[in-house]
């Protein structure tokens, strides 16, 4: 309910309220409590300020009370009971601005300059006058502008109210600059590279031609004088700016510098941290140790066959036992408690969106054209200003279908199509490394194509980064599945993830143990990620490897209570492929970090060292499972004395404890994980998880064999098999 009072002497009611001659005005003072009813951003953008409450009505000073947008914004955003009347009281713009400045003292850099305001107003007028923007769209964009301070045009484009080309045309009018179309442009690479890549990236500019002794520079937005001189110094000649479509410009920068990006993406870690790269599977020293151990075992088997076999069985039983105890201890610690960094709704609401950094989202895609529309929808659903998102859709060059799908969608410029040149190894980490070089965000996160993160995840991660110590450079969100009800396999998968992400990882985070990161939803401080050499393109569980590497460098990972839902593999062969890759990656990671155990021990400490080995040990336990299951089954049916001899005394007790107690404990931990997460519907499937372990062992053996036959091969997981359970 809004009324309008025109001028100091007269009053005109446009709503149900009325104004009178005695209506107080700003000159009579501003009630701070009334002023607090409207956020500063909205007050400045729309030049309105609540300043008094008289006879139960809120008086709002407005420079343009007749503007329907102003009226609607005030009625929608004023923090007061809906039935309380609001009266817009006409004041001059200067009066309102002065009053706003008095209530909210302006902070340099946060408040729009007169020039910026003029340009914004001019843009809004142009767009509305030509009918290119609807009032609703404009209002929404203005409200977002008042929260974020981001350019109105960028907001309109991000929300697809207008296309980027329209904005470019409008800006060219406002700034009186020529435009350049780059859609089908074949660049002169030599000319393009005259502007060094870091500068091109930072300024979003590329030399596209030379004319009349000047370099024609395609720019996303007009550069200021300092930037222009920087460019001129770099290219060695005067430049003339031409406004370009941001999406086209981005593609052009990628094409000009693709060779550089591809080289760094593949060899960056290998050259900067060769000891951490999995491009060599087993080092010479490791080979020597393994061969010697093998020879010693064979010799012992020949001399003391039964004693050696008992020793091997005892060793395996001991590994089983310690791995199991470690995992059990972790889960017990996490059961029923909140070890994750907790972020409240109030903290999220209190975030000043003007202070939000640009956030890069890396989304590797391969042959997933069908999933792109859903991906776009879910990323746009994130509670984060789109103008501060830098979404990299990372496609392989040979995946033309996905590339064409993305192109055909005409996505707004916060989505960036990144085409990774076809080269070996063709892995997700290499694509991520490629995308990381193009990233503009202070923070970055990886999501898979089918991921559905909690909408507030980015903000939660930012708050968590602020709260934890500077040593925490990675925040891992929880992963789970949206199609857990699809079949038994997906339910088991959800059981497993519930235990891993609800219990095991939070406990590892709380104990500052090296965390093998999950494949997605790990948020990084971008600068540190680059410093670490990013992901290892030769490691097929680059996420786990990176988690260990950052721990070795003294950094830490924390968990947040935010979930990303993924598609659980619902088809056994597809699941086996995915899981065999994970296991192969664990073996790779173990081999890489155990190249120099002393160094690992020194860097991670005894607890970290043990934690790493016990965590990776779980992959080796999966290899042993079928052997022990076979022995047990054989013994039950045959009572073969030879098997009995393999398990003397204490070995038998340990093996029995693992068989009867350990196995159940692990089944029950799956139950516990699901209960902890509140997923009661899949509790009973957890009871059947021993069957799932059979599949896990199958995949483990496949991965183990592939480690020697095809170590860098990326077993691709097919997505989109959820059969409508999404």
């Amino acid at each position, binding site marked *: 309910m809004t009324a309008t009072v025109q001028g100091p002497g007269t009053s005109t009611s446009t709503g149900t309220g009325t104004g009178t001659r005695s209506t107080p005005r700003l000159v009579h003072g501003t009630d701070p409590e009334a002023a607090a009813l409207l956020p500063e951003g909205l007050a400045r953008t729309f030049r309105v300020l609540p300043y008094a409450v008289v006879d139960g009505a809120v008086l709002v000073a407005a420079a343009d009370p007749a503007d329907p947008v102003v009226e609607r914004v005030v009625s929608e955003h004023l923090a007061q009971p809906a039935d309380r009347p609001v009266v817009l009281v006409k004041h001059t713009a200067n009066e309102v601005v002065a009053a706003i400045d008095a209530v909210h003292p302006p902070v340099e850099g946060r408040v729009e300059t007169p020039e910026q305001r003029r340009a914004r107003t001019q843009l809004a007028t*142009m*767009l509305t006058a*030509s009918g*290119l923007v609807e009032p609703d769209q404009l209002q929404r964009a203005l409200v977002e502008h008042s929260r974020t301070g981001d350019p109105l045009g960028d907001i309109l484009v991000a929300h697809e109210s*207008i*296309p980027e*080309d*329209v904005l*470019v*045309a*409008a800006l*060219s*009018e406002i700034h*009186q600059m*020529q*435009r*350049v*179309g780059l859609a*089908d*442009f*074949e660049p002169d690479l030599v000319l393009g590279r005259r502007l060094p890549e870091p500068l091109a990236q930072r300024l979003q500019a590329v030399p*596209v031609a030379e004319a009349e002794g000047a370099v*024609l520079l*395609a720019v996303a937005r007009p550069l200021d004088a300092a930037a222009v001189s920087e460019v001129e110094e770099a290219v060695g000649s005067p430049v003339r700016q*031409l406004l370009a479509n941001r999406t086209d410009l981005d593609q052009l920068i990628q094409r000009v510098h693709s060779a550089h990006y591809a080289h760094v993406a593949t060899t960056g870690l290998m050259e900067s941290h060769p000891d951490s790269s999995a491009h060599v599977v087993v080092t010479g020293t490791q080979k020597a140790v393994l061969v010697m151990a093998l020879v010693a075992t064979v010799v012992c088997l020949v001399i003391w066959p039964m004693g050696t076999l008992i020793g091997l069985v005892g060793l395996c039983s001991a590994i089983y036992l310690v791995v199991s105890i470690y995992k059990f201890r972790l889960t017990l610690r996490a*059961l*029923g*408690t*909140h070890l994750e960094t907790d972020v409240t709704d109030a903290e999220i609401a209190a975030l000043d969106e003007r202070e939000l950094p640009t956030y890069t989202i890396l989304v590797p895609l391969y042959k997933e054209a069908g999933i792109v*529309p859903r991906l*776009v*929808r879910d990323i*746009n659903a994130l509670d984060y200003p789109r103008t501060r998102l830098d979404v990299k859709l990372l496609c392989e060059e040979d995946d033309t279908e996905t590339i064409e799908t993305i192109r055909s*969608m*005409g996505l707004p410029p916060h989505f960036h199509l990144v085409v990774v040149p076809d080269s070996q190894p063709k892995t997700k980490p290499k694509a991520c490394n490629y995308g990381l070089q193009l990233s503009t965000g202070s923070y970055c996160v990886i999501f898979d194509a089918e991921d*559905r993160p*909690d*909408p507030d995840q980015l903000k939660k991660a930012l708050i968590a980064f602020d709260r934890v110590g500077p040593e925490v450079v990675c925040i891992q969100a929880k992963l789970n599945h949206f199609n857990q009800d699809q079949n038994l396999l997906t339910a088991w998968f959800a059981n497993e993830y519930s235990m891993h992400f609800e219990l095991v990882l939070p406990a590892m985070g709380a104990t500052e143990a090296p965390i093998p990161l999950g494949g997605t939803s790990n948020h990084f401080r971008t600068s540190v990620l680059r410093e670490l050499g990013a992901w290892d393109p030769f490691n097929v569980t680059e996420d786990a490897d990176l988690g260990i590497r950052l721990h070795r460098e003294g950094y830490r990972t924390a968990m947040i*209570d*935010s*979930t990303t839902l993924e598609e659980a593999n619902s088809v056994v062969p597809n699941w086996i492929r995915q899981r065999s890759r994970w296991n192969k990656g664990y073996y790779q990671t173990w081999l890489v970090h155990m190249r120099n155990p002393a160094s690992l021990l020194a860097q991670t400490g005894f607890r970290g060292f043990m934690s790493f080995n016990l965590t990776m040990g779980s992959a080796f336990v999966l290899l042993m499972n079928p052997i022990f299951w076979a022995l047990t089954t054989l013994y*039950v049916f045959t009572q073969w004395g030879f098997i009995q001899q393999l398990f003397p*005394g204490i070995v*038998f007790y340990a093996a*029995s404890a693992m068989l009867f107690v350990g196995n*159940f404990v692990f*089944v*029950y931990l799956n*139950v*516990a994980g*699901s*209960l*902890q997460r*509140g997923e*009661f*519907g*899949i*509790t*009973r499937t957890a*009871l059947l998880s021993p069957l799932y372990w059979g599949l896990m062992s199958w995949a483990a053996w496949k991965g183990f064999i592939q480690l020697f036959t095809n170590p860098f091969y990326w077993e691709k997981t097919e997505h989109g098999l959820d059969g409508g359970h999404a």
Partner: protein
Amino acid sequence: MSTPTIDPAAGPAGGPSTPAPTVLPAGPVVLTNRERLAGVVQAVGRRPADVPRRPWESLLVLGVSTLVYAWIGYWLVVEMHVVGFETLDRLNRALMVWHNDPTKLSALGFDYPPLATLLLTPLTIFTSPVRALLVVPLASAVFAGLTMMTLNTMMRRAQVLAPLRIAVLVAVGCNPLVVLYAAGGARHFIWLSFVVVALGALFAWYVTADIRFVMIAGLAYSVAALAGYSSLLWFVLSLLMVAAVLARLGADGTEVEGTTVGFAAPTVYVIALWTAFNGLLLLDPFSWITDSSDASSSGGLPSFSLVELATATGKLVLHGAPLAILVLPALVFAGVARRNTFALWLAIMLAAAVLTPALAVALRLTDSPLLMRNALPILLLAVIGGIWLARSAGDASTLVSAVLVVGLLASIPWTFSSMKTYEYQNLESAFAAAVSTRESQEGTRTLDGSTVGLISEEAMAGWIRDNVSRRSSILTDNAQTYAVMLLTGRPDLFFDRVDASDGPWLEAAKDPAEHVDFLLLSTDTDNDLLSQLYPDAADGADALLTVAYSTPRYTLVAVPAGFSRVADSSDDEGTEGTS
């Protein structure tokens, strides 16, 4: 290289055409955790805060209780000779797990619930404390300490003041029935302690809605189930309670199902596993329940009319756990009048504890009707009920706690006096006599006709330790001579029925000279398989098998070289059986 298109026209009207808009999927996108958990009663993060953890206080209660009962138990067992032979049997089995020749987990056997013995194995790793009988009181004291610790935590959750908590613990702990079973090594406190832990966890769950406690309760019941089959009754009642409480709080079917599955899974698993073992090894999957002393009768049970049963039940409660007479109606009142769900369920459990002994007799599931020890679960449930009433009393919490203390203290002399004369009992009268007279009870007879003491066993064990050193050189039926074996601390000296199962043992029994140097025989030939084969030798009257050493209850005879038993068909009768 192509040329970029430079558009000289300034202004939006001259802009290039816009791409066709892409139709994106609409509708709700992602459910947040909060939305997903909106209807969940037990969601993490939306529950009342639990009391702060105080591990040191818990450890202190556990440690002090254990030490006190161990000290009393040592006096009771070693000086007063008040000890149950069942405890010695279980300890001997536990000893055999580590020190037999060969070491065998199957020494646990099927006579007792497996965990009643397995949980004692840590006490028998070293043999010296076993020989000195130090482990006998510990076999129950540790679990009594666990019970006290759980009661203390429950009282903390009930916000009972610290002095009153101590008073309640002292009053419960000094109850003579509690002292006897906590200090004497009996197995009842093993399963009872885990039932109390489970109930304590459910208590915490009801207060905090923290699902972790349901899982803890489920795990505790799984241990309790294999330590004493009677605990299955409390498990079933608790399962119903969990489902009923959730349904009352508005949980949907999925949450009720998931929670009850999580609660029941451990117990169902262990029972299924134990059933499978029974099936595989005894060829009778339900032997654990049909042949168990916990839930079966050998047919010697006297007849009881309903009136007699009711009277006996009244006496049991009146003498063993009079507190229940106060607490049960109070719980029912709180449950019905004040709609206190947990109070109502505690009332149901307490009523079940009261009725179960009579029910076991009515269904003929026991050989030992309405024993005084049956009052132990009634007493402990009454205490838990009292604690819950104190929590539910609000401002009157302190008053209720004080009444609980007074009730418990008042019942101490009453119960102690009843132990001397109560009709159905084990060692209660011997315990009461030992406490009253401070004199050893060696050789005295209990009200059920058993003889108290273990001098015979100690003497035989001492002789064997001093004179026998060859492993597996004494053939014996360990099901009867376990006390001697235990007191030697050397089960490896014996060729028993566990070493190589009954088949090879029987072969050796028929031709002992081929296998052993001695036969250890029980003078009571009713149950001893070896004594049945050599009755004269058991009496010390066999000309060939000369007595090496004998006590009133045992005879050790030497087996001469070349000795061979002349077998006849009648001798072999009755030798089949399992240990």
